[in-house]
């Protein structure tokens, strides 16, 4: 087990280097000229201004040179400077990433809780009304577009009924707490601002539910299928013959065996949401990685695009690693040397 984790950790730097290289090369093959993002249209005709801009951003150097400089800077945590915000990309990401993480973690909590519960109920009450209802709910969640669902829920809960706040992470008039973790719910608590904590929590509910519902659909279908198979296995009969109650039979014996394959999907969904939350972030004006990436792509902001790609890739790798480790822990039959 320890050797397995070590081996995976040793492989990490090489994988990251691969991501960096790919992300860097991809930007060089795009059609758009990054100069248009830096230099205004009027100055484009001024060769001196163009040359100055090229020198300022290193665009006059050869590709291998730029690559080596980039990788060198990366080693000291420098992701370059954004063309648009004119701030270090690393700093932008440090502010954006926690916002996305907070949203995605909340969405995964909602999604796995609903997904597992629905899957278990559907399997246990196989082919009954409960099963059909659970499957309909799951199918609805995973087939409805998130931007539509987001807008509809915002309209109903925020505009029409006013029981939940509108877009954003927190009341815009609020006196923001100092950024410690970047998680609004945690930072407000750390600052001792209980009312702001609840405000941040209320703001999380709708976007987390919108994203979580889609995940719940996938998870519940998987859990249901696995549960149906596990409930037919003989050790379930053994558990009942032992005198275990139905709740215990389902949760401790059946569900635990179902979790092994489910873990993989939960890990994958998490990684997918991190990069796929763009639409939800847009609808809810959530200042996360998704909206940052969209802005960067629109403005041909190359340093930002590469930076987002690298950070997304690394988070994806880490998620996969954690998933695989959890898989080994949950499944004693896998023994890795």
């Amino acid at each position, binding site marked *: 087990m320890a050797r397995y984790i070590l081996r995976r950790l040793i492989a990490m730097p090489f994988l990251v280097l691969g991501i960096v290289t790919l992300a860097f090369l991809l930007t060089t093959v795009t059609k758009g000229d990054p100069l248009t993002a830096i230099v205004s249209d009027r100055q484009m005709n001024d060769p001196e201004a163009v040359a100055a801009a090229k020198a300022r951003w290193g665009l006059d150097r050869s590709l291998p040179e730029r690559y080596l400089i980039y990788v060198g800077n990366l080693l000291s945590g420098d992701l370059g400077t954004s063309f648009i915000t004119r701030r270090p990309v690393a700093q932008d990401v440090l502010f954006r990433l926690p916002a996305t993480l907070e949203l995605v973690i909340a969405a995964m909590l909602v999604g796995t809780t609903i997904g597992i519960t629905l899957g278990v109920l559907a399997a246990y009450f196989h082919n009954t009304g409960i099963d059909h209802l659970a499957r309909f709910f799951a199918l609805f969640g995973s087939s409805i577009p998130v931007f539509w669902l987001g807008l509809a829920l915002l309209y109903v809960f925020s505009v029409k009924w006013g029981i939940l706040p509108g877009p954003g992470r927190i009341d815009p008039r609020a006196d923001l707490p100092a950024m410690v973790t970047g998680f609004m719910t945690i930072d407000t608590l750390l600052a001792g601002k209980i009312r702001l904590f609840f405000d941040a929590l209320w703001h999380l509910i709708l976007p987390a539910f919108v994203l979580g519902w889609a995940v719940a659909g996938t998870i519940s279908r998987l859990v249901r299928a696995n549960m149906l198979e596990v409930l037919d*296995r*003989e*050790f379930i*009969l*053994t*558990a*009942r*013959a*032992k*005198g*275990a*109650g139905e709740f*215990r039979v389902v949760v401790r*014996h059946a569900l*635990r*065996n179902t979790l*092994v394959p489910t873990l993989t999907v939960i890990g994958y969904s998490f990684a997918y949401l991190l990069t796929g939350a763009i639409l939800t972030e847009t609808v809810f004006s959530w200042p996360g990685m998704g909206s940052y990436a969209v802005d960067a792509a629109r403005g041909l902001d190359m340093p930002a695009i590469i930076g987002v790609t690298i950070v997304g890739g690394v988070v994806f790798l880490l998620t996969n690693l954690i998933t695989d480790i959890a898989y080994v822990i*949950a*499944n*004693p*039959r896998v023994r890795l040397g």
Partner: protein
Amino acid sequence: MTRQPLFAVQDLRVAFARDGEYFEAVRGIGFHVDHGEVLGIVGESGSGKSVGVLAALGLQAKTARVRGSARFQGRELIGMPRHELRQLRGSRIAMIFQDPLSSLNPVMTVGAQIAETILLHNPAVSKKQAMDRAIALLELVAIPQPDRRVAQFPHEFSGGMRQRVMIAMAVANDPDLLIADEPTTALDVTVQAQIMDVLADLQKRLNLGLILITHDLGVLAGHADRVAVVYSGEVVEEAGVDDLFKRPSHPYTRGLIASIPNMLVEKERLFSIDGAPPPLGKLPGGCAFHPRCPQAQAICSETAPVLETFGDHGVACHFGRSA
């Protein structure tokens, strides 16, 4: 009989719904077993022997309909509230099943599974005590290094060792009745005898009532006190084990005995009963066995014979006595 047997099943019927209609897989089965007694129930796969016993303990499939009577220590199990039945299962009545690998939870250590049985029925026992008892139980079923093995998972055990774990789990709460459903069928021949020895030894030591369900009459010869032969959801013959082997009265029993491999008599090929048991819902009229019976007469396809008892030898055959 004035005295109450430990476990008595009477006219037990189990039916399964298919397309809105019920088909009986168990058609009025009856048997009884006492403390310290070993009852063998023998029959082909699909004869309803396992289904009937499981249903008596409330472990039937959700779609099944159960009728009749199954009394344990005088208490009626059929229709008993589920939580009361649950208190009996695993404490007073224990079971072991055919395939010890699939019968054990793959993601729990064997110790945790044995301890669970103890904890479920003894809320006052601590986890630590339950684990200590689990180790003692593994020792009881002769598993070497029990203190190390207790923390291992089922896949780390061999087939025979797994069945020992199942047995340890079954006797964890010192039950009165143990039901072993084909306990050796999935095991290697060499291991079968060992497992039967462990079972027989525990049965005597704990004075268990033991029901041994099997399709192999040979297994019963050395271990059962009495045998009930089941065909197509009914008991067709019941007798003391010696009596049954000496004077088998039902043609089906005779067929079963003739099919046991015998090394003393040289035979070209093993005897087998022609045909297959009737499928669910496709019972022939009259005696269910008559299409396969070498002695069938006209009456056999018209009237179903009832179990008649001569002394303590019961047989359900029109020609049972004359045979």
